Structures are given as structure tokens and as C-alpha cells.
């Protein structure tokens, strides 16, 4: 049984790093990547070439994205009756109080910052895996 995770992230270095660290943490995770907000919404709404995209169990998103930024994506997800139940976690480099506040106002399920050190990032991913993907009970498809 695969766990489907949608990663919304535009930096290739971060995408690859997240893939590597998630693979080490839990091999049954299937990480899907959207490089901007529009791609992410197409994936979530099964539009165009994404018609067969699976419904993610979990969404990880960066705040600063091209075309449609992370805050807008978050707002769209949390306004959508079907998508709003998917845990959406902000994973960003921003430590700004305004970004943290805005994210929770938009109903982000959690706000995490990208640590500078690899081992700390591994710990963050391990925590996500242990808590959100293993311990937390989340509703199945609605």
C-alpha cells in the first residue's frame, strides 16, 4: 500500500533532497512533484495530463512558488470541499512571523521550516513520517 504525497516545490535541489530523505525515511511513500501552483492545482483536480493523478494522502508545499504562490494554493485547497481534508503542511525557508500567521489563517495543518543541516532535515522528515503518515488518523476519500 503506497502513501501518496504531493510535494509542491520549485527548486530542483530541494525536490531531489526531499525525495532522497523521504525515500530513506519510508520507502512506501510515492512522492509526486508539482513545480508551481498551477501544476499543483491541475494535479489535485485531475486536469489535463493529470487526469489519472492519485488523490494525495498528504500535501507538502513551499510558500514562494512561481505563477501561483503557496499561499494561493493553500487558500484554494482549503476552500475545496473535497481537498480541504487532506493535511497540508507548509515547508519553507521563511521564519517570518507574517508567513507563519498567514499560513495558519489559511488553515495550514502545520508550518515547518527547512533546516540548514542535513541531519536536522532528516529529523523533520522522520517526524512528518512518524506523526502525519503513521500516527495521525486522516479521513479517506470523500
Amino acid at each position, binding site marked *: 500500500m503506497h502513501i501518496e504525497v504531493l510535494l509542491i516545490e520549485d527548486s530542483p*535541489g*530541494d525536490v531531489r*533532497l526531499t525525495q*532522497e530523505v523521504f525515500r530513506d525515511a519510508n520507502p512506501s511513500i510515492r512522492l509526486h512533484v508539482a513545480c508551481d501552483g498551477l501544476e499543483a492545482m491541475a494535479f489535485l483536480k485531475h486536469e489535463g495530463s493529470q487526469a489519472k493523478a492519485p488523490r494525495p494522502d498528504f500535501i507538502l508545499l513551499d510558500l514562494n512558488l512561481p505563477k501561483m504562490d503557496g499561499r494561493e494554493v493553500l487558500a484554494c485547497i482549503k476552500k475545496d470541499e473535497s481537498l480541504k481534508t487532506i493535511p497540508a503542511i507548509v515547508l519553507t*525557508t521563511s521564519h517570518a512571523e507574517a508567513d507563519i500567521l498567514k499560513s495558519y489563517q489559511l488553515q495550514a495543518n502545520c508550518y515547518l521550516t*527547512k533546516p*540548514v*543541516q*542535513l*541531519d536536522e*532535515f532528516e529529523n523533520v522528515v522522520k517526524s512528518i513520517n512518524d506523526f502525519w503518515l503513521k500516527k495521525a488518523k486522516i479521513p479517506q476519500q470523500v
Partner: protein
Amino acid sequence: MKSTGAPLSVEASASARKAADRHLAWMEGGYHGLLEAAPDAMVVVDRSGVIVLLNAQAETQFGYRRDELLGQPVTRIIPAGFAERLIADDLRSASEALAQQIGTGIELTGRRKDDSEFPIEIMLSPLETAQGILVIAAIRNISARKAAEQTLMDMVSELNRSNEELSQFAYIASHDLQEPLRMVASYTQLLSKRYKGKLDADADEFIAFAVDGANRMQRLIHDLLAYSYVGTKGKDLVIVSSEEALGEALRNLQVAIQESGAVVTHGVLPNVLADAGQLTALFQNLVGNAIKYTNKENPVIKISACPDVDSKWRFSVQDNGLGIDEKYFKIIFSMFQRLHKRDEFAGTGIGLAICKKIVERHGGAIWVESQPGYGSTFHFTLPATA
């Protein structure tokens, strides 16, 4: 006085002239010479704002001949701010006016015959005469002073702007450097983790240097940000217990204190005007250094405070560590200055620069007294509570 340029009616002008003549006659009894000898332009006006007397300096200053100004409204040479004052003075008695106006310099604008304007300072003194109250105005051209003031203000604002720009630069540089550095650090660490011992000895060594370099750069950027935060993210100075701030610093240093076996003692410490977070950082840096730069089994560190001049407290952090040679007393407070090789003592050399910036932001000073081999005492001053 409404119109500034129009001459008075013939009768009014004639009567003013008459009054002036009478007054001049009275002045001739000794005062006239005094008026002419004054270093400033002197203009005497009556209560309706008509010029009744002036000296040669006034002629030169405003570019008129004496007879061109006598009987004319004072607004001709001082368009605004003077005549209004005379009218307001109608409401006051002569003695009140006298009390209020003597010695008060008012900055206004003077206008010459050719319509050019220049900044003036005038001093008013009411004079009771048989003809009623007259007002003597001593008028000084303050163009040079104004120009100097403007130059000074321009320099101050330029200095502020460049300081602001510098602190923005430090913040943006260190903040934006973190992104690419995170990539370098993460991937070299990933390389090291995945491939250590799987390539050859050279590869392991190269990767180790890359990882170490990235780590050091991260510490530098972290410290540079901390340094720039002292100015940009500082809080207002409020009444703070320095003893509590020290307590917080010692809690943060708990592990280092335990590992070193250091004995840290302090007496009663006062309340001061400070940013609590920065005061904690200050103690933490100084006590942390005292623990770090030692060759003793059990470093002993004493913190004390005593009243200093100018409503300040002088704090002292004394250790029995390595001590510092006098020639380094100043340089240790500069950014990225280290007295030791990296493998002797870790650190970026920014701690004391941060201390200096914190103390100076509080209007205090920081310095060190030391003798190599006999420990060091760092002193700093902070404002006392009012």
C-alpha cells in the same frame, strides 16, 4: 498690516514721518549714536508696524536708502511673522510684552529692495516712549549659519541613510546567502553520508573539507545575522533585572558550565534600562568566553556590578583564564577577529563584536583589563533606571 508693497496714504505717511522726526529728535539725546554703533541692523517700528527709525546697517542689509523705508510698513523688508506679532501684542500690556520678548530670537525671512530674500534672526525689545510703545528690532543676517546647519543636517541624513543601507546589506547578504549554502551543505553532507569509505581515501578527504567549509560558512552567516539583528531587531529599553538576565544566560550555558566544571558566582545585581534579550546575549557571550578561554580544571568566573558616573552601572565579568595581551585589548571587539588557531578554540570571532554592538546600542561602553596568565575582566556600562 495686509498689503506688503503698497505705500501708506499721504496723510498716514506724513504723520508717521512726523512721529519719526519727533522720535529721532528724542533719540538724538544720546541714543542715536548707540543705534548706529550696534553691530546688527536695527529697525524701530511703532505699534501699527510702520518703520520710524533705522540704522546704517539696516540700509546696507536691505539695500534701501533710509528715506525709502521711513514711514513704510515693516512688511516691506520682513514680509511675514513680525507685523503679526505686533498686532498680537495689542492684547498684552507693555510690561508683559517686554517680559516675553526680550532675548527671544525669532527666525524669519528678510526681503531686500531687489526682492531677493535671506534668513534673519530678530530680537525684539519694546521701548516705552512719550509717543507710546515702540518696538526695537535687532536684525541679524543668518545666511551663513543656516547654510552650515543645512550642511550638517544633510550630512547627518546621509550618514543615517548609509548606516541603514549597511545594516540592510548585512541582513540581505546573510539571509540570501543561506539558500544556496543550504544546498551546498545538504548535498555535501549527503555525499559524505552515502559515499564515505566507498570511494577512495582522497575522495573522503575532499568531501570532509567541503563539509567542514560549508559548516563554517553556516556559522559565519548565522553570526553575521545575529550581529545585524542587534541593530534591526532590537527592542525598546525598559526596566530589566540584570540578575534575571544573567540567570537566563547561565541556564543557556548549563551544559558548557557542567562540562568545564566552572564555578560561576555573582553578587546582587541591579535593575537597568535594557533590552532583556540582548542583555542575556551579552552575559552569555562574556561568560561563555570565560569558560572557553581557559586552561584550568575549574574555571572561576565572578560577575559583579557597581554604580558608575552618568547614572550608569558598571558590570564586571572576571575570570581566571588565559588572559589577553594588552596589544589585543581593542582588536578583540572587532568583527571576525580571532586570537587563536581554529583547532585550539572553535568559533567565528564575532561574539565580542556583538557584545560591543549591544552595549553601544544601550549608550554604554565595553572594555577589558587583563594580564596573560592571570585572567581577564570584561567591564561594560549600562544605563541605570531613572
